[in-house]
């Protein structure tokens, strides 16, 4: 019986200590979310199933999978895995990864409804009501959110300018013939 009593006292004291600590040391915010958000590509395209990058960052901090952001690609997953000490996994929806594209408004068809302006998360579309709108190519992230609202379907996605040539990674451990002069 004395044992029972002793442990109950122990438990009560510990409970009190933790309760005190919970009040005394309350913290807001999670620095991890910021670190995660810094890795996400900020395209704000919602393909991850969250309304933007920050919410997905919060979800990851709460334990969601790290492979849901197609714009971030495998490189993004890798960076997240590194940050969180998790294993690198392939993208959940590998088919969603595509070369970067930009929105382009066929200006003569645009009726100036401004619906796309409201949809664009990065204010990349300019234009006045009833007048034609246009996409600022340098600001467009290619998130495609402006496409569905357009009542006349006048927004196209055009390929972004091709990146400059860069050195490829060498082939691994196979004999490489060097092209001789013909």
């Amino acid at each position, binding site marked *: 019986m004395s044992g029972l009593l002793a442990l109950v006292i122990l438990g009560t004291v510990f409970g009190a200590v933790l309760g005190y600590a919970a009040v005394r040391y309350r913290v807001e915010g999670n620095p991890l979310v910021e670190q995660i958000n810094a890795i996400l590509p900020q395209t704000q395209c919602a393909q991850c199933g969250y309304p933007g990058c920050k919410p997905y960052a919060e979800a990851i901090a709460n334990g969601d999978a790290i492979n849901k952001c197609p714009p971030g690609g495998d490189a993004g997953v890798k960076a997240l895995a590194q940050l969180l000490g998790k294993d690198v996994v392939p993208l959940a929806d590998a088919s969603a990864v595509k070369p970067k594209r930009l929105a382009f408004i066929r200006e003569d068809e645009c009726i100036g409804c401004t619906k796309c302006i409201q949809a664009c998360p990065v204010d990349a579309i300019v234009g006045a009501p009833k007048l034609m709108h246009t996409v600022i190519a340098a600001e467009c992230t290619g998130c495609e959110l402006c496409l569905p609202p357009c009542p006349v379907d006048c927004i196209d996605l055009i390929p972004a300018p091709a990146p400059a040539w860069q050195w490829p990674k060498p082939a691994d451990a196979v004999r*490489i013939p060097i092209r*001789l002069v013909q």
Partner: protein
Amino acid sequence: MMARQLFGFPGGLVLDDRKDRALHAPIAPVPLPPLLVLPLKQHLGAPAVPVVQEGQRVHFGQLLARAADGISASVHAPADGEISFIGLHPVPDDSGLAQPCIGLCTDETSAYEEEEFVDDISLTDADLRERIAQAGIVGLGGAGFPSAQKLTDTPVKWLIINGAECEPYISCDEALMRERASAIIEGAQILARLLRPQQVLFAIEDNKPEAIKAIADACDETAIEVVVIPTKYPSGAQKQLIQNLLGFEIPRGKHSVDLGVVMYNVGTCHAIARAIAHSEPLVRRIVTITGDAVERPGNYEVAIGTPIEFLLQHVGVKTTQLRRLIMGGPIMGIALSDHTAPISKLSNCLIAAGPGELDESLNPRPCIRCGDCVEVCPASLLPQELHWHIRAEQYARAEALDLRACIECGACAYVCPSQIPLVQYYRHGKAVLAEQAAARAAADHAKARFDAREARLAQARTRRQQRKTAQAAAMGASPIGAVDATVASALASNTGAATTPSEPITTASETDANANNISTNNRINNSSTDKPVIAQHNDRLADVLAAARRAKEKKQQTASPTVTGTDPSDENAKP
């Protein structure tokens, strides 16, 4: 010539230099080819902008393309003739891709014209700078940095003339130093006058005794100090040469000018002397043509733009012997895949290699961590670790191991017993890192804009709310007040489908303003509290998710006819 304490640099290699072959005869001119091809980008920085049209007649020395804004250099006509095309043409480049060039059909009569000599004493410093800039001179040591842009206004401590020419095979600088020492020194004097250094050093590797003698003679009576450095590749690389001569390193992220050192290649000095004394822009250069497949190896003075085929024909090439064609040296050069590519300002050497002279295939095996590469790396890197990480696409790790300090000298790959194309890994790694940095910057930019927009929307919402309460309070008070309130609330509301006629105006103009001025938005963002953003998050959330869903549907409809269980009303809304 004085003995000077050298500090040395770590690593490095002693190579069989094989420079003699091209040095047995003096520099010989090469006749003009019928067609010159002048790449718009023969330098570091932005391509030059053409100022001539196809079909236009031009004369020797005429400006064909002007330097673009920022780091760039202009291109001039090496001969009289007619512009035959402006467009893509093969150039000496690692990618092997064609690049924008200007084609120039030379007149049969065209020949080099010696401009008359101008004494630089009569020119002001500003004139000199202007002339160097106008002449399209770029660093001929390899990097091709526009030379005029290295001429700082603030005095420097050291001016170093780089006559090391440490790479095997290449001897164009050596030939120049032997034969035109005085012109080089003239150029160096001009640079010294402009940069006002406390000391001018002229570094030459000790395997070039004739050149050393010629330069030392020419330097008599001048303040230029000739320094003989031991032959060790890559002693001519800027950072290593500075370390060797001056004993300090250029800290990461800085340029040598930041420490008061400016370095010019001997060829560059020569070109500067010509630009000043003869008003000749950079339209020709000395090219070493060598290799086992060349019949008459030597150093040739070649008009820039001369196609390689033409050159090879001129020096005689044993076609059956020819195995590989390299522009530059065997260690740092560019493999050529197209004979029509021209000589550019940066082409110091052309190697037509015979059998067994250069690698004809690579047989890479896994790295065995033997450490040979560590021993020769002049930048004190761990080349094998860099390679392991880049191989595994851990670019950030490679960066943390100072990938950026790699000067791509190739010493590591040269000694690697596993014959791993290490330099290619580093080039790939650097390219990816640059790409990632750009993507990061774009993401930050997008985030700033996104946050700004969120903040703006939130503010508008609170404003509308305030108006509403104000409106309710003002309703009974005065009719004018009521009208005001209505208008104000209409102006403030900017979301949702309930479109009032006045609403989009605000949206559009606000959007416009924001698109053009992010800093304003940031200010708004900072001044607004977090709460409203979160509060309105949920509204937006629904909107955005709906939009995303619609986007997905649209995609699916085009991709496959199967429609997964979705809201039919949605489908009706968007056929």
